[in-house]
């Protein structure tokens, strides 16, 4: 597994550091050290909650998810092989826990995404209205309501596509990892990712073209 630092939000500032190396913490956890367990939970619960919330979009479910993920991590710390960073390992546990919650809440059915896919004419030529200007992401996000609109548009994507986009583009899992987490083929991950991005482009076009008042 590639050494991934973290997803966009997982700043390194939250890595446990005050007077204890990661190895010491792991050793402490394995030995059942209560103080280390408390520090471990406090150091990681914040960003884990953010990951769970991004995927589940529900405070209560996200908290359940984080609780289950941390308990699982603490019980299985003996299985942590140290080939990745502890944080990367925890991120995977959190994502898997969130996916389990998603499945139990709502089937990841093949929702209809066709109306949001790109348009072609009868000669298979793309239909794309000319772009006289394109607003940058930075400019769009400088306004709170527009940022909220972007987030809600991502939420409008059919669930089985939204989740692939979130895992690849936001949580930064690679294609193989997403395929494994969702139990689908890598080819299927790629198709869904591309469709999700194409659909999102269509949903965000008024913003990108500067047509949203």
């Amino acid at each position, binding site marked *: 597994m590639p050494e991934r630092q973290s997803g966009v*939000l997982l700043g390194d500032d939250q890595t446990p550091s005050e007077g204890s190396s990661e190895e010491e913490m792991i050793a402490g956890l394995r030995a059942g050290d209560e103080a280390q367990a408390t520090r471990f*939970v406090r150091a990681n619960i914040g960003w884990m909650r953010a990951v769970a919330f991004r995927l589940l979009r529900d405070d209560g479910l996200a908290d359940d998810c984080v609780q289950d993920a941390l308990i699982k991590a603490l019980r299985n710390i003996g299985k942590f092989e140290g080939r990745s960073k502890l944080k990367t390992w925890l991120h995977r546990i959190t994502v898997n826990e969130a996916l389990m919650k998603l499945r139990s809440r709502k089937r990841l059915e093949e929702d209809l995404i066709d109306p949001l896919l790109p348009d072609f004419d009868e000669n298979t030529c793309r239909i*794309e209205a000319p772009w006289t200007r394109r607003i940058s992401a930075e400019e769009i996000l400088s306004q709170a309501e527009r940022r909220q609109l972007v987030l809600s548009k991502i939420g409008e994507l059919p669930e089985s596509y939204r989740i692939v986009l979130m895992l690849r583009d936001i949580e930064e899992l690679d294609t193989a990892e997403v395929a494994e987490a969702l139990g689908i083929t890598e080819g299927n991950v*790629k198709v869904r990712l591309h469709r999700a991005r194409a659909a*999102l482009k269509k949903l965000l076009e008024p913003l990108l073209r500067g047509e949203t008042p």
Partner: protein
Amino acid sequence: MKGAMLRKLPLMITCREFEDFLLDYMEGSLPTRQRRIFEVHLAICRECREYLAAYRETIELGRQAFEDPAANPPEDVPEDLITAVLAARGGDPKG
């Protein structure tokens, strides 16, 4: 017009074929020859060029939207959640 032309010429792909290669192109996993074909299409097709630019901006917009703290739950974690985790962990013997 363009569609018919693109289908007939060698080394030319249609917009729909361009669409099928898009993800591999962006991930840099297209073989050299296919990448050249892709780039030829980009050079001659205004629609796909603008589409690709907007597609890239969309990915960026999604990424950056989540970087904002407002997109995430408050940083102060409820103490009862921390307590619950530690209690549940302590309550069950290891193994």
